[in-house]
């Protein structure tokens, strides 16, 4: 263990750089995944006939092993000159995030009590107004819980993307294995784990921040 600490101290600059690179990939992928997954999740609550097929597709995507997915993206992205590196890594992360994000968005909006939606309609709120003022505020804690799952999962998958030259903390693990350099492997694994725990905590905080006050009071009072 002492040796691992020595390694971290001696390579502090590189550690920061790779951690930053790792975080950056996960963040970019998360932003991409939200802008794709949340609208799709909302859309399938309006067009129920698509819900089953879309959720099944997202489910299949998540079952593909990451190495296999990188392999499949390689010939496709080679056409635009990005077969390796950060582009296929971020795209893979976006695809993997779709299931937790779409599913949570869909379920959260579906779970808004129908009488609340009916009251809004009956009072003359347009569909858009109802979505902005009622459905999304009520659904957002569950949507953010989906983002949390996606973010933590992506930190792990991003570590593997070092094998396609995407950088990030996976580099320590990959190079450590290649060079049979135990301290390097453990340092990489440790940093990835710490990052995952940290991000999970940060997302939990975000989840609490976006939960409307009236809902928190309701939960506390047990109604």
């Amino acid at each position, binding site marked *: 263990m002492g040796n691992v600490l020595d390694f971290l101290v001696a390579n502090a600059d590189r550690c920061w750089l790779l951690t930053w690179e790792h975080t950056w990939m996960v963040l970019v992928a998360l932003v991409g995944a939200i802008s794709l997954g949340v609208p799709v999740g909302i859309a399938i609550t309006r067009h129920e006939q698509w819900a089953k097929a879309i959720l099944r597709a997202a489910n299949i995507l998540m079952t593909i092993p990451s190495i296999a997915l990188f392999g499949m993206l390689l010939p496709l992205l080679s056409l635009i000159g990005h077969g390796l590196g950060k582009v296929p890594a971020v795209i893979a992360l976006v695809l993997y995030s779709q299931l937790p994000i779409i599913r949570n968005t869909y379920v959260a909006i579906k779970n808004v009590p129908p*009488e609340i939606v009916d009251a809004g309609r*009956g009072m*003359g709120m347009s569909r858009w107004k109802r979505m902005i003022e009622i459905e999304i505020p009520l659904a957002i804690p569950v949507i953010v819980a989906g983002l949390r799952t996606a973010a933590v999962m992506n930190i792990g998958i991003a570590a593997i993307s070092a094998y396609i030259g995407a950088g990030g903390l996976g580099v320590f693990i990959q190079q450590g294995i290649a060079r049979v350099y135990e301290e390097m492997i453990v340092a990489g694994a440790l940093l990835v784990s710490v990052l995952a725990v940290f991000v999970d905590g940060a997302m939990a905080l975000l989840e609490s921040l976006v939960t409307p006050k009236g809902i928190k009071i309701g939960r506390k009072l047990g*109604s």
Partner: protein
Amino acid sequence: MISYQGVTKIFGSGSEAVTAVDGVTLDIKKGDLVTLLGPSGCGKTTLLRLTNRLITLTRGTITVGGRDIMSQDPVKLRQSMGYAIQAIGLFPNKTIYGNIAVVPRLLGWAEKRIRDRVDELLTMLRLDPGLFRDRYPAELSGGQQQRIGVARCLAADPEILLMDEPFGAIDPINREEIQDEFLRVQAKLKKSIVFVTHDIHEAIKMGDRIAIFQEGRLIQYDTPEAILTRPKNRYIADFLGADRALKVLGLLRVEDAVNPSPAHLLHASVTSGEALRLMEEKGLGHAVVVDGGKPVGYVTPADLARANLPVRSVTTAYPVQVLVHSTLRDVMSHMLMHDMHTLCVVDANGDFVGTVSYESIRKKVVAAYRDDTPEEKGNVGT
């Protein structure tokens, strides 16, 4: 105010088609509270939801204030009518203020005006604005939430209210209270109201008129008295129940049956000897004793025979004095409980108004059944 002409709603099509509302023609006058009554699945809620286009007509026309609803934008139409439902449907993420402010905000009111309006409504429904304005629905009891539901539907002061079992989700005691409160508010505001209920007591209590439905068809549309005393057919008679004559008692007030100058009236200062003579002369079994315009109690010849004192000293107090505005149903109940066939009627100040007897109540109810012209409901609900 609202006119339904041959309104029909068919859900589904082909062999699965269900006719929920079948050729209903009905006029609701301005300022009237009309209860739509019937068992579940009779089409009453469907008719209500057709009115603000939450569902779309199959055939027929609905006009509101003379304008066909199909020629109006549904969202604008809904904003022009109050809407309250059994499940209340308060928005849990908004404060009480935010909930009541929904429609005023949609209509673009200034925040100052909304604030004044919210406080006014909370006060009207006996909820302290300072205490409730900034709370969340989860912090309120069921009865309080229901009041907020009513406040929300009155928020933009619409002329028409659509209420679908608005007091259905609370316990009977609170329901009575909120019904009374709502009637008090309605007496002032005079909104035109479509009020769906499956509770016959509620329909009678709240309705200026009742529309009774069966399998999507309107069977009878009349005042509560007329429906109770002259149900149109067996279905309605059964629906009203075998105790419908007792329900009529709930509609009639003491003031309808009071005898303002009963023969058996004695002043408290008369001596018992004189009182006894008077009573024997008129052949009375008992007499009401009044002092300074207030009833003191009653005496019987047996009480008076004991000594020659002022009547006051041998008077038995009435176990209960009935108020002019009580229903005859309450009076009848008192009579049975205390085994009395005559009770004293007083006004709000406790001044003697007259007496009400079992016989006068009986006559009143029998008269209601004989009456060929429907009675106006003007003296009820005040």
